[in-house]
């Protein structure tokens, strides 16, 4: 890959980093990342990856922008209300960095399309708001041997870890989705907008670390934080023999679409 003078200037703060350099930037610029969900987490992830010059960013989301999204989904602006989220996101990415190729999927991520979509990507970011899709992303990535970043936020809390093949997966931690209503949904719970940015930027940093090979990923470690105390905590986790998808005797051998009431508060 030959960088133009303009690109060398644009990415100079990466290139200056000893651990990244021109080579690292080349890896970023030829990287392909899928962001699932163009919401609270997907918004900062997509913006930072675009700014970093990730070669191809895929964005999948079936929703349109709602006024209540703007409190945290910073890739969408007031005039974007009622526009498809993927198109609003693509527009901002193109404005921020025309080097990035954006592929949009204005649809839900389901057991039907999951493997077909992820196969083209190097790294997947879970920026979704519900457990059925979180489990689907995990299972699809484990089955396809893909690395991904898991992220979840609630009220003042955030939690994330990174999966790479052979390391702990989401089902190693949690066997199956909680029963609907066991975990408070957003409509009951709410979330401090900036928490989405805190967690999303961690996910974006993990993505860039994965692409460049710099540092130690959050594999086999679950990072949690609480914004009220600003305490960050990392718990060591590990691959479970009994994991239903990556364990010794997997019981989940094909993708499942779990049922759960959606989390979004709709204005209709």
């Amino acid at each position, binding site marked *: 890959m030959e960088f133009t003078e303009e690109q060398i200037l644009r990415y100079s703060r990466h290139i200056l980093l000893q651990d990244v350099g021109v080579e690292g930037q080349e890896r970023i610029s030829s990287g392909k990342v899928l962001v699932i969900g163009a919401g609270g987490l997907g918004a900062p992830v997509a913006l930072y990856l675009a700014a970093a010059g990730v070669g191809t960013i895929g964005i999948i989301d079936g929703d349109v922008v709602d006024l209540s999204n703007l409190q945290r989904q910073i890739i969408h602006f007031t005039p974007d209300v009622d526009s498809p989220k993927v198109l609003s996101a693509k527009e901002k990415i193109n404005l921020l960095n025309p080097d990035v190729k954006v592929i949009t999927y204005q649809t839900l991520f389901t057991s039907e399309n999951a493997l077909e979509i992820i196969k083209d990507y190097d790294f997947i970011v879970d920026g979704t708001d519900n457990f059925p899709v979180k489990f689907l992303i995990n299972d699809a990535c484990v089955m396809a041997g893909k690395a991904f970043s898991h992220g979840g936020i609630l009220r003042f809390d955030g939690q994330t870890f990174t999966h790479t093949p052979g390391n702990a997966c989401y089902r190693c931690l*949690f066997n199956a989705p909680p029963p609907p209503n066991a975990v408070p949904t957003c409509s009951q719970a709410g979330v401090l907008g900036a928490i989405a940015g805190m967690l999303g930027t961690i996910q974006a940093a993990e993505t860039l670390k994965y692409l460049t090979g710099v540092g130690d990923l959050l594999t086999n470690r679950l990072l949690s934080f609480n914004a009220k105390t600003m305490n960050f905590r990392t718990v060591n986790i590990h691959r479970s023999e009994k994991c239903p998808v990556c364990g010794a005797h997997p019981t989940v051998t094909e993708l499942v679409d779990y049922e759960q009431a959606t989390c979004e508060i709709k204005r209709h």
Partner: protein
Amino acid sequence: MATITINGETKELAKSLTVAELLVKNDVSQPDMVSVQLNGEFVYKENYKTTEVKDGDEVDFLYFMGGGSF
């Protein structure tokens, strides 16, 4: 007396408890919402009632966290 660590915080218990009892004591009414690690090892749900948490043990409750888009 038993001194244990729950999610990084030191707690004093009058006596050893099972994981199931500890969940009740910590107001975890729905065990489906958490995953439990005892000294870095997962405790499977079917063993909650028989696994004792003893003096010096480290327990981690890992909570389901759902959001992202919301």
